[in-house]
């Protein structure tokens, strides 16, 4: 793996992060740095702590950071509220997007888009202007307009929920997007749609973290780095070839690694 010249400052720095919930330690010293323009993949066994890491970066109130720091654009965000993190440009695509019965998807998308726009000093959008914007983004994820009139994710199929996550990401234009298994449960066409959505927002200023179990997403979007997580730590980092290696070897070797350390 060729080490790139880092000309700009990192977007996200996770430094030796320890976190627990109900005194149960889950993260045990995670370090990860993402520079603008980079795509990182995180892989690892079920239960090793990938989703927990993503939720902690997004500010989930159920987890306590017991040691270490999370920095976003150089500033420590350990104690920022989830909405403040989101407004400033951190996006988490959920492994299991939440259904919110009774809240209209359209209004939900509009209010969240406006929260981000307000932070960016952009004009907030009324229903009409927002309709225009959202139409264009719907095209991107090939979703039907009818999804907007339903409650947030309610009754959406697995794949539709994931596309709704990409739609939200496209509307919020984040600086860093953490996509937790957005590729799981997608059919081949939906995977391409999601991949092209990710490519659309990926540019020289943004960072992307893909949490995934499958090579097929990484075939569409080649990561600069692949990290392997085990028992709450990143135990190995490599280039895109590491993913292929994992595909062959599986994760058993990571158990030995955990035992050794």
């Amino acid at each position, binding site marked *: 793996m060729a080490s790139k010249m880092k000309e700009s400052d990192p977007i996200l720095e996770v430094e030796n992060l320890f976190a627990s919930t109900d005194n149960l330690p889950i993260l045990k010293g995670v370090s990860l740095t993402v520079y603008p323009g980079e795509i990182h993949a995180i892989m690892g066994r079920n239960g090793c702590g990938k989703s927990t890491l993503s939720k902690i970066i997004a*500010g989930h109130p159920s987890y306590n950071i017991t040691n270490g720091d999370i920095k976003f654009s150089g500033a420590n965000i350990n104690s920022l509220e989830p909405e403040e993190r989101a407004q400033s440009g951190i996006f988490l695509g959920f492994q299991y997007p939440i259904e919110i019965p009774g809240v209209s998807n359209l209004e939900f998308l509009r209010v969240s888009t406006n929260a981000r726009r307000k932070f960016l000093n952009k004009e907030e959008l009324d229903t009409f202007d927002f309709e225009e914007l959202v139409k264009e983004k719907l095209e991107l994820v090939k979703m039907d307009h009818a999804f907007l009139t339903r409650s947030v994710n309610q009754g959406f199929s697995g794949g539709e929920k994931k596309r709704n996550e990409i739609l939200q990401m496209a509307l919020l234009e984040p600086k860093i997007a953490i996509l937790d298994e957005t590729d799981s449960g997608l059919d081949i066409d939906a995977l391409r749609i999601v991949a092209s959505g990710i490519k659309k927002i990926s540019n020289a200023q943004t960072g992307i973290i893909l949490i995934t179990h499958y090579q097929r997403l990484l075939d569409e979007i080649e990561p600069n780095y692949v990290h392997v997580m085990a028992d709450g730590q990143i135990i190995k980092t490599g280039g895109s070839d590491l993913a292929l290696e994992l595909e062959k070897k599986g994760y058993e070797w990571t158990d030995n690694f955990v035992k050794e350390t």
Partner: protein
Amino acid sequence: MEIIEKIKNNKLIDNQTEIQKICLHKLQSSPLPNPKSELWRLSNKSKFSDFLDYSINEKDPKFDIPYPKNSQSTIRLIIGESYQIKIIEENYSIQQLSEDELDKHIKEQISYFDQNENWSDLLNLSLSCTKNILGLKINGSKIPPIEIFSHASSNSLNAKTLVIFLEKNCDIDLLQVNLGEENSSLSQSTFFCLEENSSVNHGVVSYGENRSNLLNSLNVIQQKNSEYNLGSLHFKFNFARFEIRIKQSAGNAKTNIKSMQITKKDEQISTYTKIDFNGPNGFLDQLNKSLADDKSHAIFEGSIIVPKIAQKTDASQLSRNLLLSNLAQIDTKPQLEIIADDVKCKHGATISQLNEEELFYMRTRGITLPEASKLQLSSYFQEIISFIPVSKDRWDLLDKLLNEK
């Protein structure tokens, strides 16, 4: 017995109408609703006696409608103000029912009354003097929207009655607004008769002020091929009951209901509905939403009756509920009584509160906690509100009222 005494002692006893006498007589045999019956068992006894506590008022002081007219063409009527209504235009006519017509119709209604089920109507009709009964006969097409106001003034018990005949092939938008002033009780009974092929978008918006009470009873008879759409909103009452009874007299009619009640503080608001399919091919789509905050209590009970004669009925009833506080209470009970065998009926109820994961999800999208609950509330209203025939600027006013703490 007190209520009977009160009605009897009312100084206008001498000019009691025949209808008043009939209803009073019926009330005498059982002066109060049966507190053990399904319809009344959840009603708060002390609040119900708050309702009955005021002295009877038959004369309204001048009443100013608190919001602007929908548009120039809107027809506005206030029950209790003496009018002679006779609007005859090229396409339509709106005329007051004659005393005979009114008498005949109400008496017929009374003959079907069930003592307990129609207790609110019996009370209403024994209290309503001629001046407070408005009867209209509507005919034609391209009728401008109609608004009808009922209002209870402070420190008194007021009764208002509305009777509407919608003639064949006629369709209207009708908004009924019931307003209760501080410390007041309003008894409102409405009798709606939809003839063949007629259709109505009926909005009922009821709201009170500090410690006002409401007994709102709505009786609808639908002839064949008629369509009755009801959107209603009840809020800000110490005690309120909205009783809806709809009868598709020969089936083959459509009924859509979207009703909502919002309770705060220690308020109790309930909605009782009874939909009676008295013929085949009836259709019902019903949604009730309750939203309860603080230590308030909201109740919804809906019954659907599908007798043998009502084959191919297609009925759906849903009750959706939102508890905003741990001390609030919502009781909901959709009820089906199906005897016919070839029918499609579904019903259901849900009670929800934003949970931690839902909140976290919204927050990761930049939505703050207060915004999240506001969003939930406004989405919650939207579905009902879009069903009530009211203009946008009017809603801004209601919106303000709804958002009051």
